[in-house]
């Protein structure tokens, strides 16, 4: 009992005048201030700085000079940018649905398997733990022509023609996307499994008593109740595919971004503009565009998938 009294006398009028609840709030904010300050310095300040840089012609070797929206005009007229933009949209538009449908199908069936359940789950999760760069190199070798490429060796042994994969302007993007989907699959499967387990068994029992078919159970019970999980995964994996870099960079390192920019995503273009050509202002403008795209896509998805 003596402690609070002591505090009240030594802590001054302000502190002493606060109720216990208020004090808790003050303490909470004191602790929260650390991450907020950290974020402001490490995240928000550079973000604002990037917006400013996008209006300059800074090239690392000169003082930045204000050029207004010239960088954005250049971007609008840049053929490579539109190709890259198209690639980025393709990564998102193919990657997200394919990976989600795959992950759900696997999780749905894995949920019913008791035998070796943990082992199979671990097998799916393993690629998620692997370094993206290492995995990209392994796949890069899978795609090589005969005699070292596994896939082409296989095709060839069945008498089928070899495929160019990474060296083709049409096949390169799906070839890069495949390992990216595979790598994220384990994580999505585990999240889906957790979501499936969280659905109360009573709903299923009730449905079965009513003699409802499996398909109807899936459509009317499982999927609607999985909605929060699906929203989370859609947003999470969309952001992932929009920011794809490691796989592309490592699988096409000789000619970064694939033949004729066939696989180049926005992030790789930003990297090259900034750290190979040192056009920092132009790179900042591209970053601003990526930021806005990410923002728009995230908002749109949250809106569309929100409960009606």
């Amino acid at each position, binding site marked *: 009992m003596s402690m609070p009294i002591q505090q009240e006398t030594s802590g001054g009028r302000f502190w002493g005048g606060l109720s216990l609840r208020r004090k808790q709030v003050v303490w909470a904010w004191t602790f929260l201030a650390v991450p907020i300050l950290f974020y402001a310095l490490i995240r928000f300040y550079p973000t604002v700085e990037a917006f400013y840089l996008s209006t300059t012609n800074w090239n690392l070797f000169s003082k930045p000079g204000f050029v207004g929206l010239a960088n954005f005009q250049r971007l609008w007229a840049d053929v490579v940018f539109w190709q890259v933009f198209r690639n980025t949209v393709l990564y998102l538009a193919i990657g997200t649905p394919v990976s989600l449908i795959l992950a759900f199908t696997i999780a749905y069936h894995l949920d019913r398997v008791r035998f070796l359940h943990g082992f199979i789950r671990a097998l799916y999760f393993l690629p998620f733990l692997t370094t993206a760069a290492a995995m990209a190199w392994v796949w890069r070798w899978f795609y090589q022509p005969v005699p070292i490429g596994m896939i082409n060796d296989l095709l060839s042994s069945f008498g089928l023609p070899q495929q160019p994969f990474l060296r083709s302007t049409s096949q390169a993007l799906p070839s890069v996307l495949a390992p990216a989907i595979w790598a994220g699959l384990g994580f999505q499967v585990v999240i889906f499994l957790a979501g499936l387990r969280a659905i109360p068994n009573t709903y299923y029992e009730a449905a079965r008593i009513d003699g409802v078919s499996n398909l109807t159970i899936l459509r009317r019970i499982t999927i609607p109740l999985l909605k929060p999980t699906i929203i989370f995964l859609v947003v999470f994996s969309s952001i992932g595919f929009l920011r794809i870099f490691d796989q592309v960079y490592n699988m096409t390192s000789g*000619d970064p971004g694939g033949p004729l920019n066939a696989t180049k995503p926005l992030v790789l273009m930003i990297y090259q503009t900034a750290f190979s050509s040192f056009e920092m202002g132009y790179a900042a403008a591209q970053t601003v565009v990526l930021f806005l795209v990410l923002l728009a896509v995230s908002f749109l998805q949250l809106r569309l998938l929100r409960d009606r």
Partner: protein
Amino acid sequence: MRGFRGMLLGLLVSFGAVTGAAAQTVEIEYWQYVFDARIKAMNELIKRFEAANPNIKVKHTTFPYADYQTKIAAAVPAGQGPDVVQLFYGWLDNFVAAKFIQPLPRDAFPPAMIEKEFYPIVSAMKRDGEYYGLPTAVRSLALFYNKKLFQEAGLDPAKPPATIDELLDMAKKTTKRDAAGNMLSAGITLDFPGQDYHWWRETLLRQNGGAPYSDDNRKVTYDSEAGAKSLNWYADLQRVHKVGQVGFMDEGQAAFRAGRAAMTIDGSFRLGGFGAIKAFEWGVAELPAGADGKKANFASYWVNAITAKPTGEKLEAAKKFMAFVTSPEAMQLWLETVGELPARKAAAETEKNLNHPIYGPFLKALNYSYATVFVDEMGQRQVSLDMINRVLIQNQDAKASLAEAAKAEQAILDKFYKK
């Protein structure tokens, strides 16, 4: 009080002594990127330099290649960083424009001496009559060939191709395919992202009577008859003769290393990597001459330069150090440690070096080499890669592809020179 004063005085005196001693020894800082052999060679050079100049200390700092330029750009304008710096010759214009480096003082490095004693490719370091940097070592291209595969094909392993017609003939004889027509071993590697884009631009194009750029390097001039002829010749290696295939074994050097390519074109910097090959014997030859005997080669190099930072006695120390690392003694050490060729004619063309079966062909090439002046190395390289990809993947006509490439590269040059 007295004791305290005495102590203070003593402190001041000893402080003075320390700073006095520091004033006698000058410390300068040297920067280069991380590459084991280069670091080893430079450490040895610094040791020798400090032994000969006991009042100068050299601090040796290295950074990974990927961060190297960014670090320099951050440090130098802030008055930090190196006094003597190593940079790729292709970065010179950016470094000069940003005032990162100063012209080499004429008293220690008279232009007449440089032009007399160094290989002519060093002229790429000259801007408005002033030299801005000097290399210790230079690199050129040569043809590496697999003697075992030559023998198996019934060719004389002591006779590499001397002309491009012989090269095509020998490539045809050494190419191996399985029953389904899949390539098992290439006659010659086709690797534009490797060194082939230099081979095409500075060798094949010139051998067909063309030139990549105008004399002042401001105009792209390869969109020509010679350009189309040379590009078609190169593309036909895959399209018509099928003696090579882009992407075979992933990279040209990997194919050669694995013994699955009879010939490859690569630089002297590859000697270290190929030195580890145990499975077969390989040889080096000068790049094959053109139909009329014309020879041409591509040389590149890293130079040492004095940054804008040092003045007074630091500048004097930097000059001495620069002079030492570009001396014949340093060049011989660099050749033996790193495998790169001396940049001074006299140091390079000793009887021993010229007759060396491996160094010889690279050294001979330096007399007819061109050092391309790049303004945006990555951007210009990408233009070349796109050009060959349009021809080989999209079957675009060589002339149309050249025109597109020339336009794109001209835009890069214009953007740089209008600044």
